[in-house]
């Protein structure tokens, strides 16, 4: 009974380590092929458009409403000890350091992580990846490298725009609903904001972008057989990317202020 339990725990631990090993090998091989020529510029362009441009509405809406609700919440909270004038600072710091990157990351994980896993998984189960390989093209270089690069480059850009929109959302609520003075609010917004706050957010974004693309590609690439396999790959890509984003968020923050 206890032996069986220990055996199960042992097997699970073993499987977990095996997965970590597999993901690491995949990551190193992909990074290697990202650096080595040839470079597939058209693939890169397509991915950048898909991630950077077509995710704008989703990221914009998410950060807009988050900035708005943040202003409302912090106002009612801080009003209890008459610190209403800190609303602008709270909004800008929370958005640039936490909400912008994390919310954009999670939204993009749902959108892009899923579509990458579905696309590459479909290519796997229909033998298109094998076909690539036999047609003198390395699948990691043709499929994975452009996605990793595009994810890493585009997320900071998305987050920067998301930051501006989120802060603007806070501004709208503060001015038109809470009755703040426009000039004063903007001055307060900029007063305590440091370059390092924005940089921290962008570093996080780059890490999240890499993780999203990595999970999308990894799960798609190792997709099981049939439509069911692709479905599972898609779910796993989104779930694992989201969890890794939250873990990486803590680690990067701790590293910056460690």
């Amino acid at each position, binding site marked *: 009974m206890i032996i069986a339990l220990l055996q199960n725990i042992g097997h699970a631990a073993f499987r977990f380590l095996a997965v970590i090993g597999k993901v690491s090998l995949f990551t190193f091989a992909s990074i290697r092929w990202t650096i080595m020529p040839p470079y597939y510029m058209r693939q890169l362009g397509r991915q950048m458009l898909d991630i950077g441009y077509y995710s704008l509405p989703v990221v914009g809406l998410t950060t807009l409403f988050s900035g708005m609700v943040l202003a409302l919440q912090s106002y009612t909270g801080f009003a209890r000890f008459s610190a209403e004038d800190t609303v602008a600072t709270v909004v800008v710091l929370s958005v640039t350091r936490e909400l912008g990157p994390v919310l954009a990351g999670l939204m993009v994980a749902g959108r892009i992580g899923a579509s990458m896993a579905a696309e590459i998984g*479909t*290519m796997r189960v*229909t*033998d298109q990846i094998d076909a*690539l*390989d*036999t*047609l*003198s*093209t390395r699948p990691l270089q043709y499929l994975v490298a452009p996605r990793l690069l595009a994810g890493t480059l585009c997320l900071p850009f998305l987050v920067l725009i998301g930051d501006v929109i989120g802060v603007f959302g806070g501004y709208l609520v503060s001015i038109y609903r809470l009755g703040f003075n426009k000039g004063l609010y903007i001055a307060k917004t900029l007063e305590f904001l440091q370059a390092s706050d924005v940089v921290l957010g962008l570093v996080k974004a780059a890490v999240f972008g890499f993780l999203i693309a990595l999970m999308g590609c990894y799960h798609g690439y190792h997709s099981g057989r049939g439509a069911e396999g692709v479905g599972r790959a898609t779910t796993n890509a989104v779930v694992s990317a989201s969890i890794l984003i939250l873990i990486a968020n803590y680690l990067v923050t701790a590293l910056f202020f460690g």
Partner: protein
Amino acid sequence: MTSTLTKSAKIEISHIAKSFDGKPVLKDISLKIEDGQSYCIIGTSGCGKSVTLKCLLGLITPDSGSILIDGVETVGQSRTARENMLRQFGMTFQFGALFDSLPIWENITFRLRQTTAMPRAQARELAADIVVQLGLEARVIDQYPAELSGGMQKRVALARAIADKPNILLFDEPTSGLDPITGGVIDSLIVASVRNLGATALTISHDMASVRRIADKVAMLHKGHVIWQGPVGDMDNTGIPEVHQFVHGHATGPLTDEAVHAARTGV
């Protein structure tokens, strides 16, 4: 007629075995295919024909055994050696495996454009030439695979396999799911490609009429073994009940009995 001993083997598969998750699919497969020969593999569904072909391409690594191509061992070879070896292969996959995201002309000229700096205009022209030879209209080159019928996709897959004139051709069920006329057209295309390119061909097929048209030699796989191989003309008189049933498509016989037994016992 030269004896088989003096003719060089283009492809020599010896004693390969492969299991998936402990379930053996190939147990002991040996095949020898001579230069310029058109070889067919037949066998019931799920007997490992596609797996054999993928072993040949190094897409699946056999658990044991050896595969020589032009006398060179390819199991466990280096990545660079494999990449060079693959350049002489043209392959069609069972389900087409055309690239969904690329138009037909880019599908057909994919390897040429990867390995040579062929300009776009020239590649389009070449693709149009090939599809016309295969009985399609030249304008399909700007369409995407999803917009074509199954038969048209099969022809495009064939076009992609022969576009850069490989000297080993592998076809996985090139005529399955086609009407008999289109199937006949594909068969003659295969025969013509083998003849014109001087290539060696290995074709998997369920379609006995098609096998008779394209094959010089035939091998039948069954339960992980090659149970018979020989010239296509001898196929009808092998004296092996399984081969007899398969070749003549009889509903009853040893293959059916085994399938029923396997379904009952779950083995």
